[in-house]
């Protein structure tokens, strides 16, 4: 279905076969790259004691790919994306610290709460474009204020929650690995499944999609819930890894910003894009962040501006535009 000028009926069967083979090849290549990344990450702790960079690499691959589920597959730009991450962190913190649950159910609770919040915010999917972006930001702020107004002995107030006993960098590292692998697997599955194709059809023209029998609201909702689940889990695991739920950081707009930047640098709408974007930018970010936090902020802003002006499709997207023949290999 890729070529816009389909030949007469007699040959379409053959073309469909070609398309399917190209599809399979692309998916296999992406799968191989993801597998290499996952295995490499799994080996890191046995090679070096300093896993911090690798941990955050996995975290941001997860965040950017989850963002991609929303932006790339549905065309919605959620500026309040951080809300899922934040409620995930708080859910884990509260379940572990206040309710005295073991860490695993606390993490599952993070996912459940993330999904619940996404269902709560689902009516905003009726909105489009900038309206959606603005409203999503406002709702994220409401949720932040709501959590800030819960009693202090529940959320730890302005100090946040400390998960002292849970401290286990290795376990939390592998938990993050599992979530990253699950996110990448989901994106891969979406790219080949009928759900993913329905989503792309809706993104390109929702009227036409509805005409051919796609249930637009339900299909969108599924992507939205998936896009919320992974950041919530990531938020919970990050809280476990760092041992704190920090009210300043859990709802920081920078979490949204970085998810967008990494995803966009690689290219939203492509499967490999967010992973490549994160790999390209995180190292730089990590190096500068440690030394000059304010300049880092300035650079982040500058990167967004330059990307928007000169490379709005990102690395992978631009590559595919310049060399369309690569579409056979890159999903």
């Amino acid at each position: 279905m890729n070529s816009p000028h389909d030949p007469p009926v007699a040959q379409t069967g053959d073309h469909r076969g070609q398309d399917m083979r190209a599809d399979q090849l692309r998916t296999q290549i992406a799968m191989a790259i993801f597998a290499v990344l996952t295995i490499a990450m799994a080996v890191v702790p046995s090679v070096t004691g300093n896993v911090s960079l690798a941990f955050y690499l996995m975290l941001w691959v997860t965040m950017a790919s989850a963002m991609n589920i929303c932006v790339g597959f549905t065309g919605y730009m959620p500026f309040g994306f951080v809300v899922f991450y934040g409620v995930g962190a708080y859910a884990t913190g509260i379940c572990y610290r206040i309710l005295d649950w073991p860490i695993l159910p606390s993490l599952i609770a993070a996912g459940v709460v993330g999904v619940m919040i996404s269902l709560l915010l689902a009516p905003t999917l009726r909105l489009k474009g900038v309206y959606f972006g603005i409203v999503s930001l406002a709702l994220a702020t409401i949720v932040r204020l709501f959590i800030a107004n819960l009693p202090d002995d529940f959320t730890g107030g302005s100090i946040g929650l400390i998960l002292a006993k849970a401290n286990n960098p290795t376990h939390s590292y592998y938990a993050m690995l599992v979530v990253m692998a699950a996110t990448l697997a989901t994106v891969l599955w979406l790219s080949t499944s009928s759900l993913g194709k329905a989503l792309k059809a809706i993104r390109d023209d929702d009227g036409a999609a509805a005409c051919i029998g796609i249930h637009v609201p339900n299909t969108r909702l599924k992507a939205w819930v998936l896009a919320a689940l992974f950041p919530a889990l990531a938020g919970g695991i990050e809280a476990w890894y760092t041992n704190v739920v920090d009210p300043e950081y859990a709802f920081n707009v920078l979490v949204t910003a970085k998810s967008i930047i990494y995803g966009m640098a690689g290219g939203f709408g492509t499967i490999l894009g967010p992973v490549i974007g994160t790999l390209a930018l995180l190292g730089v970010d990590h190096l500068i962040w440690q030394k000059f936090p304010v300049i880092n902020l300035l650079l982040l802003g500058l990167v967004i501006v330059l990307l928007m002006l000169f490379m709005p499709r990102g690395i992978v997207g631009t590559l595919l535009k310049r060399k369309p023949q690569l579409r056979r290999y890159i999903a």
Partner: protein
Amino acid sequence: MTTLVIQGLLNGIILGVLYGLIGVGLNVIFGVLRVVNFAHGEFLVLGAYFAFVLMTALGIGPMVSLPLAFIVFFAVGYALYFVLIPRLSKSDDPETSSLLLMFGVSIMLGAIMLLVFEADARSLQLDIEPVFLMLGGLLIPTVRLIALLIALVMIALLAYFLYKTQVGKALRAIIMNRDAVRIVGINAERLSAVAFGLGIGLAAVTGVLVAMVFPSFSPFMGNDYTLIGFIVIVLGGLGHPIGALVGALLFGITEQVSVVFFNPSIATMLGFGLMVGMIFIKPTGLFGRQALR
């Protein structure tokens, strides 16, 4: 209790008019350019710093720095237009791209302010006697009353500009139909730059007023004001200058009256809730005509 509520109502009107200025600036830019200025709040805070620097370094009061701020920031906005906006029209989804682009600008401006002015909260020291005016049992800070008057004068000027002058009429014509404007021979490119300058200039002037009214400002506050502006324009209708004012009054009054009963952040939440309610009842806002875009 009644006095308190009336006091809240009055505060709501004063702040509502200020919020309205934020919303009008946003709507002028959005209406004409289809650009969502995420950095509006940062330009506002920058305006506040402008007044602060003029006052501490040169001893110039806010009455003089108000028009100065407008002129300087209008020029900045006019120039910035040519750097940022024309390239956007090539993108697949210009509106969302503009939101992202200005998001980047907002982060940059916040960081620059943090570098230059540091994180301390600043305030504009004004010596106005008397500090409070009594009006039939109501206590009103004189500065707020002055700010209200200035804001009203500005709105009157803006209305005159938009509805009576040639340039203003052309701007409104662009809001209504961009292509038709080109056909009748108006230079849409230059007018767009004027609109961007106007929006940024308005943001800076609002910033000076905000610095007068609120006890302090800091580099981190830009986002809060942007958010207020967004709520206001969603309430009033995206791209509609008058709608922004009405939406702002609604938001300001809701917020300030609920401050009387609840703590401030719950009041803010109620204000936001107002916006959510509006989206469910009438997603185009009070004055919006076009559906959702």
